[in-house]
């Protein structure tokens, strides 16, 4: 039996244990704390493993696996016995069926408890915080004017006083005159080339946070879907299928940007009855 690795392991355990306590009391870094604890654990582990390995060399024994069941008589006897017990109940066939029916009704009734978990979706998934006339504000609540965003600029905007900040967030872009091509039927949605797209990715709902002004694309950092902001935020590449919905914008006489209405289509990822 080689004793030196076992002794060395025990020495490492003691050194690591002392080091751990000292590191903790002295408030040393995570590396000292963890390093010493790892030394102690590995030392003790190695000592025991070496010791066990030496012992194992001495002793290999043979035994029997449990035998496969071939005792058909015993199985038949068991089946008969169970049948007898069961027949006490099944003999009264109507009552036993009625019992199963009652237990089933009881189990089903408990399913209503699931309703306590949360509200029904209602219109929460199909509406956002945007309403007719609601102004665009920054994350800090500052209303956004036409002067706040020079051409070529990009801002994240929210509805003023609106709840559902997560679902209402829009990417507000101000294009150089002539670059932007309004989609059919949306000619009045982009006054003075200010355009607002929903910032909730239509693929899996991450914020479409990256604006690449060279390519004029919005890119989702989660699964890399690319949206072409010059052409109605249609999908250029990646797993998304639907374009980012566009928010109809207007500008009042004081230069404040506001929404003409809520989005006209469902924001964010699709579901079976999304519009």
């Amino acid at each position: 039996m080689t004793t030196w690795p076992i002794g060395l392991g025990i020495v490492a355990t003691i050194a690591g244990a002392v080091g751990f306590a000292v590191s903790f009391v002295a408030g040393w870094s995570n590396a000292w704390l963890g390093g010493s604890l790892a030394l102690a654990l590995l030392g003790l582990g190695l000592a025991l493993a070496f010791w066990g390995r030496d012992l194992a060399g001495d002793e290999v024994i043979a035994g029997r696996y449990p035998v496969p069941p071939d005792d058909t008589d015993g199985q038949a006897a068991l089946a008969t016995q169970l049948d007898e017990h069961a027949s006490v109940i099944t003999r009264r066939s109507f009552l036993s069926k009625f019992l199963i029916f009652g237990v089933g009704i009881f189990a089903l009734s408990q399913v209503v408890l699931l309703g306590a978990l949360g509200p029904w979706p209602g219109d929460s998934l199909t509406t956002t915080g945007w309403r007719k006339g609601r102004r665009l504000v920054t994350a800090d609540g500052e209303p956004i004017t036409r002067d706040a965003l020079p051409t070529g600029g990009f801002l994240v905007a929210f509805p003023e006083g609106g709840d559902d900040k997560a679902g209402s967030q829009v990417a507000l872009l101000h294009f150089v005159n002539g670059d932007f091509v309004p989609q059919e039927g949306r000619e009045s949605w982009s006054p003075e080339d200010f355009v607002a797209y929903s910032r909730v990715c239509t693929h899996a709902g991450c914020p479409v946070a990256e604006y690449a002004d060279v390519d004029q694309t919005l890119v989702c950092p989660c699964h890399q879907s690319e949206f072409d902001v010059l052409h109605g935020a249609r999908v250029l590449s990646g797993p998304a299928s639907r374009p980012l919905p566009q928010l109809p914008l207007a500008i009042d006489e004081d230069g404040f940007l506001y929404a003409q209405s809520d989005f006209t289509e469902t924001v964010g990822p699709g579901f079976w009855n999304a519009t």
Partner: protein
Amino acid sequence: MSRDRRQDHDLKRGLGNAFGVRRSPIRPAARWLDTNLGGSGLLRAELRHIFPDSWAFFLGEIAMFCFIILVATGIFLALFFQASEAPVVYDGSYAPLAGAEISIAYDSVLELSLDVPAGLLMRQVHHWAALVFVGALIIHLLRMLLTAAYRRPRRINYLIGVSLVLLVGMNGLMGYSLPDDLLSGTGLRIAFSITESIPFIGPALATLLFGGEFPSGGLIARIYPVHIFLLPAAIAGLLGAHLGLLWLQRHTQFPGPGRSDRVIVGTPMVPAYALRTTGYLLMVAGVCTAFAAFAQINPVWLYGPYRAWDATTAAQPDWYMGWLEGAVRMMPGWDIQIGGLLIPAIFWPAVVLPGLIFTPLFLVPWIDWVATRDGAFHNVLMLPGQHPVRSALTAGFIAFLTVLLVAGGNDVFAFVYGWSQPAFLTVLQYLFFLLPPAVAVVTYALLRVRARRWATTVR
């Protein structure tokens, strides 16, 4: 030892024998146990329980050790974590977030990580152990597939094992969703979207499970008991059943001299096996601790708090969710619109694909039975080369998972190697279909060539 002291020693032993007293406390302890609980004979037999030896049998043990480490460190973390999304102003020691409005949950994780002594170490050991846990489980499962260990009488225990892979993966997902940092919140947002995509029941199921439209503000309080009680209790129960069945049926063994389906050859539990296994437990704990000491993991203070309008680039889930992330990234945006019914494209990779992977995986023992018509009891394992079809299918399965995993990090690969990201994704989409069958065919051919040599070495 001096002559005098040895005489003294001998004298004492002699006296002890003369009065019928053994100094060892074990004998009275054994008597106490037998008179109070009974069954000393059974216990004596079980102490000699035989364990066959192989490095491959260590994989399941690593998983079990990780569970023990996770419970131990998890108790420490639970003393500090607060599962609330209510806002609080941060006033801890991490200067970049000073004065920021964050959730109580995120605040408590920051305090645990940066201000509680040994808190960071415990958190990082916990996270590393979770990563090693799933890894050990998956390699353990692949070992089952390659050696046909799932055959009678171990079909039920195989089902328990695959269930454990599912539950442990789910609990890992719950765990990294708790800190309410930017990465975890983004992951939950994606989970909400995936739930929404299920036809008919999706939206209602999503608001029911998540407590309303995401972010509902009450989700972390809901995940917490699932993570620290519900799933761990289920895992502990199944793990107990897994080990109980293993104990009753004895462990499988590789073919070798004197071994058969009737005769088991190995090491008795006491003393060598117990010593070694305890040593391995401590070593796995030591390795996880060393990782936690020197390799930073999930530095949530760098990610910042979750806000629905913030995002990070190169966001990745924990590695064992990478296959699902990859599938979601690879699926083209093929929405199906039938009248008023929309089936979003994400439904296929995120809901249907996991079902397509796990259903056959659960059914492997019965598929094997139908294919080989072998329903006999087997305690001796097959070597991977003995059954080329089985091994080829497993190799194809591994290739399939690898393609998905790589796709889960396609942006990082494209960035590091300077590839075009969409082009790389297209390559991966082809590999998704081509690589698994190619790997399976090559594996089959190689094993057929070597089959005879394998057969002769075994005998």
